[in-house]
């Protein structure tokens, strides 16, 4: 067709790739599972497969070591952060929150879900911002929605809610139809210039016939 031209203007070339690269298969997950077992030997980890997805559960204290290994190890090489979120298990008081990371290796297309449990009293975890720049927005969202603190991230803020919002809406103890207090005027010293505009007086619509008769 007209659009498929491999070379366009001098400075703009397009490459086109075809064919499937790799699909998720049982052997793929087994390979990755073996690889992680050898690379993270000596750590307290547990691996499981849930719905064709490898799940790695780690302890909070090993967080930094394991994530730096997952990112920087040549064979693992998880260079792509897919998402960060959390799960609120309201019943588990000691480890109420579970922070969930989805990682991917763009070269081998390995996919991994990493889960870290954090307690309710101190929901703090180290940031993964040094490894993936995408973590900035994702950690902000997780803090906004679940109140998980990310130690070391300098710019965690309310992304989806407004700054004055109280509480964290995706926590299970936040009511579905919760009411928030009213926000006081943010900048009362800023004068509303719209009020200063001089209104032009309303135009009186007079009767057309009257006008004509006057004339």
């Amino acid at each position: 067709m007209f659009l498929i031209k491999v070379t366009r203007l001098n400075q703009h070339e397009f490459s086109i790739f075809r064919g499937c690269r790799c699909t998720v298969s049982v052997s793929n997950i087994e390979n990755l599972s073996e690889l992680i077992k050898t690379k993270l030997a000596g750590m307290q980890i547990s691996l499981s497969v849930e719905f064709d997805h490898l799940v790695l559960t780690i302890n909070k204290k090993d967080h930094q070591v394991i994530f730096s290994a997952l990112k920087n190890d040549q064979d693992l090489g998880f260079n792509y952060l897919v998402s960060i979120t959390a799960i609120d298990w309201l019943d588990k008081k000691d480890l109420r929150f579970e922070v969930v990371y989805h990682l991917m290796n763009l070269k081998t297309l390995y996919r991994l879900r990493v889960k870290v449990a954090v307690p309710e009293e101190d929901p703090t975890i180290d940031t993964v911002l040094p490894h993936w720049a995408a973590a900035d927005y994702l950690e902000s969202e997780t803090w906004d929605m679940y109140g998980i603190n990310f130690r070391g991230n300098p710019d965690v803020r309310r992304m989806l809610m407004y700054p004055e919002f109280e509480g964290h809406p995706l926590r299970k103890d936040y009511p579905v139809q919760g009411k928030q207090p009213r926000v006081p005027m943010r900048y009362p010293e800023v004068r509303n210039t719209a009020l200063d505009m001089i209104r032009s007086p309303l135009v009186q619509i007079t009767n057309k016939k009257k006008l004509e008769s006057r004339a």
Partner: protein
Amino acid sequence: MVKKAPLLNEDFGIGGVTTRVRPHAMGDDLHTDTMVLNLGPAHPATHGTARVSAEISGEKIINADVEVGYLHRGFEKMCETVDYNQVIPYTDRLNYVSPLINNVGWALTVEKLLGVEVPKRCQYIRVVMSEISRVCDHLTCLGASAMELGAFSAFLYLVQAREYLWDLIEEVTGARLTISYTRVGGVKEDLPKDFDEKMKAAFAGVRKHLLACDGLLSRNRIFMDRMCDVAIVTRDEAISYGLAGPIARASGIDYDVRKAFPYSSYQDFEFEVPLGTKGDNYDRFYVRMVEVEQSLRICEQAMAKIPQGPISIRDPHIVLEPKEEVYKSIDGMINHFELVIKGVQPPAGEVYMLVEGGNGELGFFLVSDGTGKPYKVHVRAPSYIHMGIMKKMLIGNSIADVVPIFGMINMIGGECDR
């Protein structure tokens, strides 16, 4: 955690654009001060509500702050209160330019949790509808971006092309924008009988208008001057910022969910994935142009070899019984009531399913506790993650480039803010 104020938030003002002169440290008489320019959230060019506070020195942006979340309506919280089929209308409102892909993504997520696979005909219908939706998404993005750079006629051509496809979608689903076409375990209705001919006629119109726009824009000197070498994103940056979809492919990342993790029979079709070499705005524009043609190709292949058969699985615990059964047999009626009252009851577990959305990898992370309602839903929204790199793309460019950069990111408010 200490609530940290946004970088430039003290310049919040009333009205459209607020400026404030910041005294320069040197204090000399020359005008060397920087200025803060506030764009949005209701700026006509930000189709979607996002706010950019740009610190500018002359025409050049030296620092920027991007704020999203003006359209947040609690999609994930709402999903926890309704059953699995009732989530589908909410997914329409995620990326409302390509709602069918969201519908398909959600249906596939729940089906993965249930461990069922829909019949081949249903998979093909989902592919066709997803690809038509993707074309609509790309056409809207291209048209809006062209309009913002002054090419209004290109916008009209592309919107007319989209109109052909919306008519087609209306023919199949009964709605134009918020479609809710899929169900867990199938689709709502089969394709109409003369769909193939109508699709061919619509595609001819799309191709005609796209060819016109290719001629109008792709080698247009003015357009290229504005787009080429603006906001270059290198491959490493794109990977680090988690970009996906056309934006990532413009930077040379050969990652397409349809190729890498084929779902819904995408492995049956032959199509090519265009890759850019530079990662500038022009590449992002042109990758979308090429992808439109590839999507049309997929649709034609799917319609050429679509098999006959049922359009949903026959499991009374997942899919509603046909109406004849409900009215004529007692079993059918009981099953109907059971399903309507209790909803689909998948097993407990956690599942992540990904599809290629209009903007990139659209992922649904679903946690089920075995009841009829989801325990937790998380959407990996590509628009939200793409907004993370916008600050970096803005810095160093001029004010006039804000709008094309924002247009090429193609942030969709409904998906970004959920």
